[in-house]
C-alpha cells in the first residue's frame, strides 16, 4: 500500500485508536487480538478446516480412487514434508509476485478511485471505459503481459495487479462518495481546503470501504500470480501444479493447493486485521 494518502490517514486513525485509554475505564469492549470471543471464533474456524481435511480423507479412504485421480490430505502433507525446500522456494516466488501485484494494484486502484470521485469530468469519460475493461477476464490478459513484460517476475506481478486493481477502484470510489452531505457542507461553510477535507474527512471515511476492496483483492492477487505462472513460468506454485500435472503427481498438486489456500487465508487475515486496527470505530457502529 504505497499510496501517500492512505498512510497519512492510517497514522491519523492509529493515533486515535485506543479509546479505552482515553476513557479511563474498561467499559468499552475493545477489539483485542486474543479476547475470549476471538479465541472461540478462531477455534471454530480451525475446527472447520480440520473437519474439511477429515471429510476429504474419509472420502478418499471410502472410495479409494486410484492415485492418479485423487489423493487424501495425508498424502498431500506427506509430500510437503518430503520436499520442504521445493515447496518453500516456489511458495516464496508466488508470494512475492502476489504481494507486488497487490501493492501496485492497491496503490493504483486507490489513486484511480480518488480521481474518479474528485473529477466528474474524468469520471464521465473513464468510468464506463473502466467497467468495460473490467469485463475482460484478467486471465485473458496474461498472455499479453507476457509479451510485454517477459517470462519473469514482472509479468506475473502485473497479472496479479490487473486482478487486484478493480475492487479497489470501485471500493475507493464508493467509500469517498458515501461521505454524508452534511459533512461536505460543514467543510464548505468552514472554508476547508480540499486537502484538509480529503485528509480529515473523506479518506478516513473511505477506509472501511477501501479495506473491503483490499480483502477481495488480496486473494485475487494470489490467483493472478498463479495464472501468470501457468502461462509462462519456470517457478512458483502455478508451475508446481503444471509440472505435477504433466507427471500425474497428484500428491504434489494437492500439496500446492493446500499451500495456496493457506497463503491466501493468511494474507486475507492480515489485511482484515490491519483494517480492524485502522478502523476501531467500525466495531462500535450501531
Amino acid at each position, binding site marked *: 500500500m504505497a499510496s501517500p494518502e492512505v498512510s497519512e490517514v492510517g497514522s491519523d*486513525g492509529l493515533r*486515535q485508536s485506543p479509546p479505552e485509554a482515553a476513557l479511563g475505564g474498561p467499559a468499552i469492549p475493545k477489539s483485542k487480538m486474543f479476547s475470549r470471543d476471538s479465541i472461540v471464533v478462531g477455534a471454530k474456524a480451525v475446527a472447520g478446516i480440520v473437519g474439511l481435511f477429515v471429510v476429504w480423507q474419509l472420502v478418499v479412504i471410502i472410495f479409494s480412487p486410484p492415485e492418479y485421480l485423487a489423493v487424501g490430505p495425508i498424502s498431500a502433507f506427506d509430500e510437503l514434508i518430503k520436499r520442504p525446500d521445493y515447496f518453500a522456494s516456489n511458495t516464496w516466488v508466488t508470494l512475492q509476485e502476489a504481494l507486488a501485484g497487490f501493492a501496485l494494484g492497491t496503490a493504483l486502484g486507490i489513486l484511480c478511485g480518488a480521481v474518479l470521485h474528485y473529477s466528474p469530468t474524468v469520471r464521465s469519460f473513464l468510468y464506463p471505459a473502466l467497467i468495460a475493461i473490467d469485463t475482460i477476464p484478467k486471465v485473458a490478459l496474461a498472455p499479453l503481459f507476457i509479451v510485454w513484460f517477459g517470462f519473469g517476475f514482472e509479468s506475473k506481478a502485473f497479472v496479479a495487479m490487473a486482478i487486484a486493481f478493480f475492487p479497489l477502484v470501485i471500493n475507493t470510489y464508493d467509500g469517498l462518495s458515501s461521505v454524508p452531505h452534511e459533512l461536505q457542507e*460543514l467543510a464548505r*461553510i*468552514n472554508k476547508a481546503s480540499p486537502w484538509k*477535507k480529503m485528509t480529515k*474527512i473523506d479518506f478516513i471515511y473511505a477506509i472501511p470501504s477501501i479495506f473491503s476492496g483490499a480483502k477481495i483483492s488480496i486473494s485475487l492477487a494470489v490467483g493472478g500470480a498463479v495464472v501468470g505462472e501457468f502461462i509462462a513460468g519456470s517457478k512458483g506454485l502455478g508451475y508446481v501444479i503444471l509440472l505435477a500435472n504433466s507427471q500425474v503427481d497428484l500428491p504434489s498438486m494437492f500439496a500446492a493447493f493446500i499451500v495456496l489456500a493457506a497463503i491466501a487465508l493468511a494474507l486475507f487475515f492480515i489485511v482484515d486485521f490491519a483494517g480492524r486496527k485502522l478502523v476501531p470505530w467500525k466495531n*462500535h457502529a450501531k
Partner: protein
Amino acid sequence: MNNEYAISVNNVGKTYRSRDGQDNTVLKGLDFHVKPGQFVSIVGQSGSGKTTLLKTISGLQEPTEGEILVKGRPIRDGIEDIAMVFQSPVLLPWRNNIDNVLLPLEFRGTRTDESRRYAQELLEMVGLGGKAKHYSYELSGGMQQRVAICRALVSRPELLLMDEPFGALDAMTRDSMNFEIQRIWQTTGCSVLFVTHSISEAVWLGDRVVVVGDRPGRIVADIAIDFPRPRGKEHRFSTAFSDYTTEIESHIGVVTGIS
C-alpha cells in the same frame, strides 16, 4: 446598505432548471430581516424550501434572484461567522467529542492552544463536560446533537443556522433540548435562524415566527411572539400560546385533529 441587521434577505428567489428545461421555482420573493441577537423560527410544510433558504443564507447555494446580506455584506465575500447545525449530528466516529467540536477550527486553520479550553467550556455549557474524551457511539441522540451544537458554536458565530436540529429526537428529549437551546442562545447572544416542522417549538423558541408557504416557498406570515425571556413550561400551556399556534396553523393550512 443597512448594517443594522444581522441578515437581510432581499427579494430572494431560487429557481432550479431541471434537465427537461422546466423551471422549478423553490423560493420566490423572500424578504425579511433579522436583528442582531434575534431568534427567528421558520416553519412551513415539507418541501416549502426552508432548507433551501438556510443553504442560501449559509452561502452553500446561490440565489437566482435578489441578494442576501450578512451584516450588510454580500455572503459571497466570505462570511466568517456563520455556523450550521443539521438535523443529523454527523459526528466523526473516529474523533472523540472534544475533537469533533474542534473540527471547524481545524478546517479554518485557526485552532490554537486556547481552542481546546473553549471547546471544553462549550461542552460544559451543554452538560457534557465529563464526556469530552468519549466517542459519539457512547452518547444518546440528544447528547450527540448537543456536541454538534458545540461544534457549531466553537467558531464563535454571530449567526447560527439550525435546520430541524431536533427533528430526529423523541418528544421528551426534544423538549429538554428546547430549554437547552434557549439557554445557549441567551449565553452566546448570537442570532439564530431555526427551521422546524413543529409549530409549538417555533412559537416557544422564537422572537418571531416566519411562516413559509409552499410551491413556491414564500413568506405568508411573520409573527412576533411576545413572551418574556427566559421562557418556561408555563408559556406552553397559556392561552396566548395556543392563540399563536392556531394563527400559524391557519397560515400554513394545517388541518389538525387535536388542538
